[in-house]
């Protein structure tokens, strides 16, 4: 059965609880669990081994400092190593050249065409660039039409040549056309190909030689298993690509392929696809991905998404509250309201620290929050800002008021407490001057 990496690590870390110093003996079982967890998350066999060796080396002999448990310390070490492995800093795409030429490549079904259109949309709307798309998949039935339809949706012109079967010629003509018409950017979508198909790999190599792109992006499905390393290496050997795009990250995959690819070819992951809508494209943040894998939530992304709905003042207020560990039920309720407006509930919920694993196996429909809202709304303002005063009597009143049972109220309180604890841990780590990155300003 598939178990998420964060759940696994949680269990592994439990084994360490209550120990004062990390030793070969007390760390062995945990390291084994981490390795298993990584394998379950589809991290490549050898890379998982290297990774756990490094973590172990780093962890051995470390004193566990005052307020941090060995589990937390190891969390930090794993998190740091994961972040390093995932690529350190955020990397932008190279838009040099006039027009700047971006070449898209990858396996069949990885999501190249959808990504091409999303990237065009992003460059057009967020970077104010004029963009043209070019359809060079002459093999798959209706592939050209697919790009054309998407182009219409986002109002970006698509260069097509239904009569040509030569991707090199089409790509060249498209670049010339873009230049002639004064487009700043041209994105070349290509056919899916297997890394072992020499003829097709030679073709993409020739496309690259001909159009001299400023940026070559390798698109890969985030659900890819152990083969990710082979594919990434083969494409990189031929194309020497500049960056990786991880698609379908809105699924429940842990995305271990990201780790494998990054450490195999050492190219930055630049974008992540998070849905079928044209807006569902995010810039990749290694630190956030590491935290997501560790189940620490993706609170930075959450705040950024929330910003498009919240006004700045409200965001600053929220950040402060979280930083001061004063996040209360009123804020929780507010957040739920905002989240409901943002759509894709489960993804967003999973970004809240401590919530991700709680909702792992839940199917969340649009009225999933109804009960929670009813419970919070049955609390007095005082109770909402001071959850600690919720004694048995108050709880039973709230249960009645919300039409639920005391058990439900207890569950919510427990979940809320866990969330606050996680936020506290993150604050503490930052306070101790550790490298754990806290997204919120002072």
């Amino acid at each position, binding site marked *: *059965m*598939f178990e998420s990496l964060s759940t696994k690590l949680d269990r592994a870390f439990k084994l360490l609880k209550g120990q004062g110093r990390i030793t070969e003996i007390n760390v062995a079982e945990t390291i084994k669990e981490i390795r*298993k967890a990584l*394998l*379950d*998350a*589809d991290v*490549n*066999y050898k890379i998982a081994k290297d990774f756990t060796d490094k973590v172990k080396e780093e962890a051995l002999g470390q004193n566990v400092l005052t307020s941090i448990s060995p589990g937390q310390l190891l969390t930090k070490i794993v998190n740091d190593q994961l972040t390093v492995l995932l690529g350190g800093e955020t990397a932008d795409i190279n838009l040099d050249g006039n027009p700047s030429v971006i070449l898209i490549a990858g*396996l*069949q*079904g*990885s*999501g190249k*065409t959808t990504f091409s259109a999303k990237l065009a949309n992003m460059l057009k709307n967020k970077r104010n660039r004029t963009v043209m798309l070019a359809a060079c998949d002459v*093999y*798959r*039935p*209706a*592939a050209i*039409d*697919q*790009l*054309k*339809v*998407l182009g219409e*949706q986002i109002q970006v012109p698509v260069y097509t040549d239904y009569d040509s079967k030569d991707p090199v010629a089409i790509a060249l003509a498209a670049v010339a056309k873009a230049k002639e018409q004064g487009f700043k950017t041209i994105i070349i979508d290509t056919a899916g190909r*297997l*890394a*072992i*198909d*020499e003829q097709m790999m030679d073709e993409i190599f020739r496309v690259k030689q001909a159009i001299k792109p400023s940026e070559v992006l390798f698109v890969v*499905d985030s*659900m*890819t*298993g*152990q*083969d*990710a390393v*082979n*594919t990434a290496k083969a494409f990189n050997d031929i194309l020497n690509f500049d960056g990786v795009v991880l698609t*379908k990250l*809105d*699924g*429940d*995959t*842990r995305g*271990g*392929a990201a780790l494998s690819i990054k450490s195999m070819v050492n190219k930055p992951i630049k974008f992540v696809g998070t849905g*079928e809508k044209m807006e569902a494209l995010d810039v990749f943040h290694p630190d956030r991905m590491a935290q997501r894998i560790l189940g620490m939530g993706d609170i930075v992304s959450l705040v950024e998404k929330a910003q498009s709905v919240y006004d700045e003042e409200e965001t600053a207020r929220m950040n402060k509250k979280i930083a001061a560990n004063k996040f209360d039920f009123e804020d929780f309720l507010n957040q739920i309201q905002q989240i409901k407006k943002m759509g894709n509930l*489960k993804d967003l919920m999973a970004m809240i620290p401590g919530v991700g694993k709680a909702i792992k196996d839940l*199917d*969340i*429909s649009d009225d999933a929050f109804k009960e929670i809202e009813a419970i919070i709304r049955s609390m007095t303002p005082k109770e909402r800002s001071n959850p600690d005063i919720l004694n048995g009597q108050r709880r039973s009143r709230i249960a009645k008021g919300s039409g639920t049972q005391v058990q439900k109220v207890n569950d919510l309180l427990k979940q809320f407490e866990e969330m606050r604890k996680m936020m506290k841990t993150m604050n503490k780590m930052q306070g101790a001057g550790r490298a754990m990155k806290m997204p919120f300003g002072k």
Partner: protein
Amino acid sequence: MGFFDFLNKEKKEQLNKGLEKTKTNLFGRISKALLGKSKVDAAFLDELEEILISSDVGVKTTLEIIERIEKRAAEEKYFGETELNKLLKDEISLLLDEKAPTAQINFNLEGVKKPYIIMVVGVNGVGKTTTIGKLAHQFKQANKKVVLGAADTFRAAAVDQLKIWGQRVDVPVVALGMNIDPSAVAYDTVAKAVEMGADVAIIDTAGRLHNKLNLMNELSKIKRVMQKVIPDAPHEILLVLDASTGQNAFEQARHFMAATDINTLALTKLDGTAKGGVVIGISNEFKIPVKYIGVGEGINDLQIFNKHEFVDSLFS
């Protein structure tokens, strides 16, 4: 007669070269590992673990296989290289087999009621539409009357893609256009199949990630609507899995199972370097047989799954 016979010679050589290392790794060491021992050598098991994990078999299933091997080895005491080789393949085949249909799978549809309705489901980009095109061709080759239903009305140009396959194979395609309720297309397809006396109808659906509840509910609805025409339709619900997918395929199977009672699997893109080992655990846990494999983009690149060849390919 090998698993990779469909590849041209050049590709095959390339593939074998790539796999050679694996080969020496595992079976090359077996004789050494077993010399005069009644217990399977730990180094051998490590090697086995690496091979299985690297083929996406997954930790849980790998441990199960290793456990079975150890148990058998302890019981049977003396065996050499050939025996271990056989035993290993037997055990893995068992996992793939526990509820496989006994009848020979082919495209003749013997003993099934007409029209035989197949609904094809899966996450985005696994190769559903391509698989349908190839399936249609196989049925057509077997002189069956086929109709296709373009119920992927969501992805840009998906209907066109299926129509082109329809032309290639020369079978009719029921299509109502894009952004139409897929249930309506499914209904019309089944009705059309009845009307034209078709032997088989294959219905395409939009790719969907299994954690999207509303999209999964839509699948249940598509299925229900078909039952208004034929109460026990669809007779086959085929989940298409991409061989390059890792352990997430488990979650896919689990959720699609819950939404639609899938009863067969197709494993696509096996012409690449991915081994698709995850189906071993899936087939075992959900008791669904792998029925077809996809081995290329051509019209003939679909085969009936053969578990022995599949298991061989893990170690070839």
